[in-house]
């Protein structure tokens, strides 16, 4: 699995961080998403798919 972001669309909802805190974080100043792990291990994959589906700004692209 490989993750890419359209970070300029991010509205700082933070939902991705609530779901997969080992993979996503937010910048301190404006809350824009930060990728902690672009190729996360298998035990994270379900959570990453869930985060990509739930993101309200279609920021997270998952390539498998």
């Amino acid at each position, binding site marked *: 699995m490989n993750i890419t972001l359209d970070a300029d*669309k991010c509205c700082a909802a*933070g*939902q991705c961080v609530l779901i997969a805190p080992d993979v996503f974080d937010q910048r301190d100043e404006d*809350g824009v998403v930060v990728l902690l792990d672009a190729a996360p291990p298998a035990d994270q994959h379900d959570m990453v798919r869930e985060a990509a*589906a*739930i993101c*309200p700004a*279609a920021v997270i692209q998952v390539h498998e």
Partner: protein
Amino acid sequence: MSPRRIAVVGASAAGLAAAEALRRFGWTGTLTLVGDEPHPPYDRPPLSKQLLQGAWQPDKLHLRAADQLDTLALDLRLGTRATGLDTATRTLTLDDGEQLACDGVIVATGVAARTLPEAAGLGGVLTLRTLEDALALKERLSGTDRRLVVVGNGVLGCEAAAVARELGHQVTLVGREALPMARTVGPQIGELLAAEHQEHGVQLRTAAVDGFEADGDGPARHVTAVRLAGGTRLPADTVLVAIGSEPAVGWLRGDPGLDTTDGLRCDAYCAAAPGVYAAGDVARWQHPVHGRHLRVEHRMNATEQGMAAARNLLAELEETLPDDGDGALAPAAGRERRPFTPVPYFWSDQYGLKIQAYGVLNGADRSEATVLDPDARKAVALYGRDGQATGILAIGVPPRRTRGLRALIATPAPWEEAREGVRNALA
């Protein structure tokens, strides 16, 4: 035998989330997505922000790229309106007369903008819900120094007023409530917002709208002013009517099994009838934790509820379809219906300010704001009902910090306990 089919009605945020989740959770049968707009699913929040501002072009609003939609193998019916649903036979009727026999239906038809009867046929008076609406408003704000009157000072009116000011137009924001967004956010946050809009040069007026004045005849009839109750006349080149919305349930009214008072009424599983579920702005469901029916018009809820409705529909079909629906439902472990118990989330952007809220603010019987910096409009507010804290809002606070406040109300907590939590978090 006709193929197994699930139909999702409404091809926007909630409908797309439902369709994706149906595939992800194992539906391999026919998946029909019906939407009356001509566009593939696009995002609405940027309409009153980046698109109106001119920062984004319409193609950036697409929620999925064409190849991502392709992988869903949809029977996609865009520009097609559903006109009726018979819940007893699960038959969906489309505006071209076609009738679709379905095993399951997810209703995700959202809401439509309300307008004023006096606005009918009057040029220059607009609403803002669709891409076309936003492009029309943008076009009218493309000159310089236009006079815009925004009727309605809820979140949509506030955002549009902010962008129009940033584009250099003369903006008057008219509301029946004295303070912007006060019905949702309470008086203290409303005061901060009023100060912010005034500082940016928006004129605030408190009044009901009595009617419009116009020039010209027939199709050329065009607004020239807004008349307020009490006699004030506000000259206007353009009027945006942002007075709320109406759930798109008209097409469901023929079915005796459905309650369509203020949205489609559902149980805690988002089910409105056997095999019929609802999600997004249109759905009024029983939130088990809050113990009442809620209808949430927020972008985040559309996605979460679309996914929940899909999961619960498949769990029901697994029980009720013979032989897993002739193979239309891939086997999956742990498929079960779960009550939908989200912590609602919404945000709004006005000028450089971000407003974020978690939980339930509507219907609060008390609210209390802690203003951290009045000039920077920085504050945190708590909302409650029946002695419980149910919602929290932050304005001008870094989002990462705001997220930390969510836990205080994720399940309603005694008011004093939550207040204490806010004090500690801000200390």
